[in-house]
């Protein structure tokens, strides 16, 4: 069990598939992760579960890895019990979190759009084109650009967390490429499949960023670096200053259309 704690989660799940389900039951979504480089022991300490839940989970995992063996679970380094999570971010990080809010609104719309999606109609195709534009210009061009061109540059590129996030961005872009191809071929199945997959991926990705990566990164940055990042973000926002309003309007329009239809 000791040895397993120091292995990457990808390898642990490969050798012991039930571990994925156990983690998922405690809200730890390592399964869908494309990269899986994080070590099992780091995953446990980062998630900071209440003591009894952590013991229980680790007990079950050790049963899978070494069935029948009575194992002493080394307690992860305890941080003081987290109060109801009111995460506080530095100003530049808060901007990223606020942008996530808009992207999450789009993700929430996807399951409402897809069942009624009709690629034969111009309306249906335009909706997908607009959605792709939102993803490519706002989520990617505006938001991910801040992350990749500015935020990540403050850290070692070889950090597991940075690699994982970049991989997610890449995978997301591939889904979008497939959506565009599906759109051109009026291939509804392809569009639905990739847009759903995009939604699943981004939901997990954003949750991880908001709850784990951004707070951790905030802790690593000096006051000076926060100021630098803040001012670089401001430059991006000045260059792309119509984006926030334009895409907020887009989301409002779609929400009004699809939520009204349900009544």
């Amino acid at each position, binding site marked *: 069990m000791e040895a397993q704690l120091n292995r990457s989660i990808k390898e642990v799940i490969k050798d012991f598939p039930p571990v994925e389900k156990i983690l998922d039951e405690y809200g730890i979504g390592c399964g869908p992760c494309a990269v899986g480089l994080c070590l099992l022991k780091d995953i446990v300490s980062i998630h900071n579960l209440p003591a009894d839940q952590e013991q229980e989970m680790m007990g079950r995992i050790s049963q899978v890895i070494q069935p029948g063996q009575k194992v002493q679970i080394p307690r992860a380094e305890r941080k003081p019990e987290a109060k109801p999570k009111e995460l*506080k971010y530095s*100003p530049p990080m*808060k901007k990223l979190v606020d942008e996530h809010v808009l992207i999450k609104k789009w993700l929430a719309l996807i399951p409402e759009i897809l069942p009624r999606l009709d690629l034969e109609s111009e309306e249906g195709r335009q909706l997908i084109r607009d959605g792709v534009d939102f993803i490519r210009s706002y989520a990617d061009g505006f938001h991910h650009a801040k992350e990749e061109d500015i935020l990540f540059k403050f850290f070692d590129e070889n950090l597991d967390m940075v690699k994982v996030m970049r991989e997610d961005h890449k995978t997301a872009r591939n889904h979008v490429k497939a959506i565009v191809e599906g759109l051109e071929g009026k291939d509804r199945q392809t569009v639905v499949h990739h847009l759903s997959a995009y939604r699943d991926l981004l939901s997990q990705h954003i949750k991880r960023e908001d709850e784990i990566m951004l707070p951790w990164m905030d802790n690593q940055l000096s*006051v000076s670096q926060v*100021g630098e990042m*803040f001012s670089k973000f*401001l430059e991006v926002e000045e260059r792309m200053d119509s984006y926030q309003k334009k895409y907020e309007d887009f989301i409002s329009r779609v929400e009004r259309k699809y939520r009204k239809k349900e009544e």
Partner: protein
Amino acid sequence: MAQFSGCPGSRMVDFREKSDHNKEEAKGTIQSQLRQWPIQLHLISPTASYYQGADVLLTADCVGYALGGFHPEFLKGKSLAIACPKLDEGQDIYQEKIKSWIDDAKINTLTVLIMQVPCCMGLLNLAQQAAKGAKRKVPVKYVVAGIQGEILKEEWA
């Protein structure tokens, strides 16, 4: 604001380069991280060279007496000004100076370091009002020190 006023007490001196901030600390000896004079908010010129693009620390008078590690933990790498929000006279000029830091000296960040006593909040309020009135935006951090030398709070405003 006169670059060179008669009184040496308020004559501007910038000694960022001359001091050797990274010298090995002899056991128990703290290196001075102060790189400027004057330091009182009443006396400083907000556009002095050491404020340009700097990370600025605005701190209450008493903080140096409560925090033993003020230099290495808070002053290092920053330019500062000290003031007392309770006892200082003529505080209208304070807001103007802070605004000037932000808009004219284009500082990178502003950290406000105060004591836990209620009257000290006035310094944070002052800074936040000034930041609201400024044209540029900078991140503002505030730190609250206890009278026994502990850090009670450290947050971005």
